[in-house]
């Protein structure tokens, strides 16, 4: 899969590049609106990660250009630190697939990209297999040997997020933000998420061994697959 990062902040683009490359994405950069427009004209991308505040114009114009080209299915995620309330609505109205305000966690970006892949490619089965468990993303259920495991909403959300970011450490903070995103709290390093993870792991362990479900020291969790 190839990704175009349209971002004038080179340091940030490089970090995103490092992260995405590890995941096997082929990454290209555009630092400016003009070069972004050239690139989208020449190549198809699976993802365009679009910053709004570009040195030579507004990211929205790149989005408009893209929508003017016929038969294009590039997924666009707007990444912005501008933080104007109407930007989100405008972005989605103009055809962006998602909107992620900066600063975001790279795990969250990955989760959003996965969600778009599933939506865009309409995977025949909206299911993800992880060891002997099957996550039904659509119905938000988890089953083991076709038997449903009774998970709470939050537990499913946590499991899903970890699976989307499999083989990567997901910090407690990132998990908390993903699950309880709208509670603005200064001390978000609470142990609530641990309680949920503990319960989740207990439920999964009742079915089979889950040594692939790792607690990574004081930082967070990782699912290896």
């Amino acid at each position: 899969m190839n990704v175009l990062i349209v971002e004038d902040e080179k340091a940030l683009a490089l970090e995103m590049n490092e992260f995405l490359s590890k995941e096997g994405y082929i990454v290209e950069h555009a630092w400016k609106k003009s070069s972004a427009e050239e690139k989208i004209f020449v190549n198809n991308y699976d993802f365009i990660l679009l910053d709004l505040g570009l040195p030579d114009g507004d990211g929205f114009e790149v989005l408009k250009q893209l929508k003017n080209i016929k038969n294009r299915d590039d997924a666009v995620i707007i990444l912005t630190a501008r933080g104007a309330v109407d930007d989100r609505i405008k972005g989605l109205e103009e055809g962006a697939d998602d909107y992620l305000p900066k600063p975001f966690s790279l795990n969250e970006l990955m989760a959003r990209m996965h969600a778009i892949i599933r939506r865009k490619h309409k995977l025949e089965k909206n299911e993800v297999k992880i060891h002997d468990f099957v996550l039904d993303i659509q119905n938000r259920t988890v089953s083991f040997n076709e038997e449903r495991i009774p998970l709470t909403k939050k537990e499913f959300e946590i499991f899903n997020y970890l699976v989307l970011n499999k083989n990567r450490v997901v910090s407690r903070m990132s998990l908390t933000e993903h699950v309880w995103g709208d509670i603005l709290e200064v001390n978000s390093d609470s142990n609530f998420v641990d309680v949920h993870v503990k319960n989740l792991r207990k439920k999964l362990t009742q079915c089979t061994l889950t040594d692939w479900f790792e607690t990574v020291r004081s930082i967070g969790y990782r699912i290896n697959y």
Partner: protein
Amino acid sequence: MNLQAKFALYNAITKIAIILVLGSIILLSLETISSNHLDARLKKKRLKVIENLNDNEINSLIKNNHSFTDYNILKEEFIVLTAIPNTGNIDTTIFFKTDRREIEGDIEIYRILNDQFEFRNKRYKLELGETMTAMDSIKTTVRFYMLIVLVIALLITLITDYAFTNLILKPFYKIIDQKINKVNDPTHYNYANIPTNTNDFRILDNSINSLMRKIANLFLLEKQFIANVSHELLTPISILSSRLENMLASEDLPLAHENKIFASLKTLNRLKVIINSLLLISKVENEQYLKTDDIYIKQELDDIYEDLEDRIIDKEIIYTNTVNENFFLTGNKGLIHTLLINIINNSIKYNIKGGKITISDHINQKMYVLSIIDTGIGMEKDSASDAFKRFERKNNNTEEGFGLGLAIVNSIAKFHQLNIKIQSEKDKGTEIEIEFPIS
């Protein structure tokens, strides 16, 4: 009393005054004219009487005095001649007076000429009277018609004045209504001029427009400023947090460094939350949010409970929600959710293990009141009032992320014209009442 009514009243009063003054002048002059007229007539009659005097006449007049006989049946006039003793000086001046006289049982007002004269060495006193009844009746009639004219004029002027001022002041009221009363923020302001040919209103309209333009510009500047600040502050955080996340992902990281990196990420997150909170407050105050959602409080509380359920269970809190009314308001759903979740989250955070949270509601004259009572650690009396001050962001030394949460609550409440009351007692708990106006 509004301007229009004042104008109408003022016009009515001045008109009444003018009519009253004119009326009394007319009545007064009528009286003077008529008495002058009567006096002239009486003088003429006196001359006639005196010219034609002879013994016979005098005798007949004096004889008639006993019965006061007049020579016309309407008793419009009378003549009285009496002999007076021949002593002292004779006063020959003619004088007039208005007086009542009884003639054959009827009392009437007469204009009376008094005269004394000598005839064949005898002195006589002559009284000639002419009735004033006719005059009075004219005066009464005039007075009556004046009253009618007054009332009619008053009514007509009241109605026409009211209609006219209504017509003239209509643009004024339209300006007040559309440009001042109905405007809450400059984004929903209509700059079109209200049609009027009154210069003053045009000036008023234009000044309000230009004022509003200034405010709108300021709002726009502030919006740009917020966007810039937001960009400048959040971009470095974004770079740092991505970099730290990437570092954490490397396998061969020594444990001590890993911990430090994670701690740095946490610190960075704290910074991010603070900046986002401040930006949220600024954006609310900058009125960047739409208020177009129908929000059912009951539904919001259910959603919030779902979000916070684990925290409530974790602290073994007895959570009672007796919200009954099916109240809804039009506003920004996300913001109201943030407001409620902040308050309820506080009452969980500052509660004791096994404590209580009670949420109830009632409707009280034009208000829907939602109250959230907890049995938490509470606050000292002055810090409870301080909490209000902190709402105003006067005091911003945030201990434990307390001030910002309430500051957010406060700005959202103001944005939605909600009133928040807080009562707290140390070690007993806190009661927060949110008053929603019923439109």
